């Protein structure tokens, strides 16, 4: 199946809050948290930004980067765990805002942090079967962390859009493989503002089991080894988990360094490893191979193997790089952060 990435676009809000600032409010030891999480700061949405506005900006960058005719997009899937509406699709707004309506199918996906990569797989099927010429998969979140909870140090905002097709590819998707079980490691009930999680339980039976099984499953399926890849990127709820995961699987630090964006971005949930992939595509050369594995609590992982084509050089500068989006942030204090996140109820 000759299917792959035709274009991509990322969007990161400009505001940041440092871990020290959050720790100061809760009387926590910032250095211990930074050492434990390998996260120094996280992105914060503006007051008038949400999952939909972030998804639209990422989608527009993806369309502009490769000068795509939006009317050729036959499917849009927006993955998020922070869709603004409980009932009303985010994807209809995105489709209208990028000029893809009305002759297409859209839907919203939800699978904790891997809803975006599930969207990529759905688009692969649609394109591969000939149902659509181009499909767009988006991972976008303004993720929530309850005040004082461990998640508050990492729950960030950002989004990434990938246009999937079978012509003019910047990266072929060589193969994909998924691993899924019913694991209650993290959840948010209907109407609740913040998620609950199983603390340390989210690590071994959640993240490490699913990411390792999906990653190893894909390499077994393809007959590849870590050394066959130039880059690797794993879901990044913090810096420590993907670094440990890479080591367990046999990847070297040099392979994951470029895609490890969580340290100065935080966890963008549905956009997490897709943001790392975008950062890699920003510098990758023709022939480079990239290994990616997402993770969504609940729980499941999608693993992908990509091979970059020489088309990447033609479109690379058509939209801002992840490095540029991360540069020149505006740092805010906890009070402003609380206002931006709607934690203060008027």
């Amino acid at each position, binding site marked *: 199946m000759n299917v792959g990435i035709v274009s991509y676009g990322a*969007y990161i*809000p*400009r505001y940041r809050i440092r871990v020290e600032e959050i720790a100061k409010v809760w009387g926590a030891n910032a250095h211990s948290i930074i050492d434990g999480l390998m996260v120094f700061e996280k992105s914060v949405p*503006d*007051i*008038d*930004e*949400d999952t*939909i*506005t972030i998804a*639209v*900006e990422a989608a*527009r960058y993806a369309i502009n980067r490769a000068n795509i005719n939006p009317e050729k997009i036959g499917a849009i899937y927006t993955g998020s765990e922070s869709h*603004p*509406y409980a009932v009303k699709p985010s994807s209809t*707004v995105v489709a*209208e*805002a990028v*000029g893809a309506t009305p002759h297409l199918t859209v839907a919203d996906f939800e699978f904790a942090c891997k809803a975006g990569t599930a969207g990529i797989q759905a688009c692969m099927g649609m394109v591969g079967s000939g149902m659509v010429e181009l499909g767009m998969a988006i991972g976008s979140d303004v993720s929530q962390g309850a005040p004082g909870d461990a998640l508050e140090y990492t729950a960030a905002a950002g989004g990434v859009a990938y246009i999937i097709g079978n012509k003019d590819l910047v990266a072929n998707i060589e193969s994909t493989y998924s691993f899924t079980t019913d694991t209650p490691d993290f959840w948010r009930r209907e109407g609740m503002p913040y998620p609950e999680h199983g603390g340390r339980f989210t690590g071994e039976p959640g993240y490490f089991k699913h990411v390792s099984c999906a990653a190893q499953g894909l390499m077994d399926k393809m007959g590849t080894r870590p050394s066959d890849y130039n880059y690797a990127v794993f879901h990044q709820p913090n810096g420590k988990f993907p670094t440990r995961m890479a080591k367990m699987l046999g990847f070297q630090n040099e392979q994951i360094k470029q895609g490890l964006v969580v340290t100065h971005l935080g966890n963008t949930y549905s956009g997490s490893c897709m943001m790392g992939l975008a950062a890699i595509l920003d510098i990758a050369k023709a022939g480079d191979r990239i290994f990616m594995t997402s993770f969504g609590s609940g729980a499941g992982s999608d693993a992908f193997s990509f091979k970059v084509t020489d088309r990447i050089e033609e479109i690379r500068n058509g939209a*801002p790089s992840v490095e*540029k*989006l991360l*540069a*020149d942030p*505006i740092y805010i204090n906890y009070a402003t952060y609380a*206002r931006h996140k709607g934690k203060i109820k*008027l």
Partner: protein
Amino acid sequence: MSVPRFWRRLKNLYNLIGTHCGKCGGYFYPPRNMCPICRRNGIINPIKFNGAGLVVTYTIVHTSAKDYSKLTPYILAIIKLDEGPRLTSQVICDHSDIHIGMRVKAAFRKLGEESDKGMIYYGTKFVPMESKV
């Protein structure tokens, strides 16, 4: 803003779609169904503006209508689009950076919401041209 009113203007708000008169060359935003210059002889067609423009004038709103109270203080400006028409919009930037003549570009943002259980209105605001957002 009522739901039907927003829905009718949705395409214009999302993508700066106005109208262009093929006879006199005039551009209009919000869109006009009839050219105010050529009247019934006008040839009116929809057009999507490129989203670039400059700040003609601005003010900083500290005391707003209730719907915008969470945003105060915010910058409200008259923007002249490169194609010619002028419109009123918020500009998202540091208040010390805003100035008359500033080049700006369109950005997709929340315009407002009815309430916690009401509609959320999306559309176009502006950010500095050199901004990466």
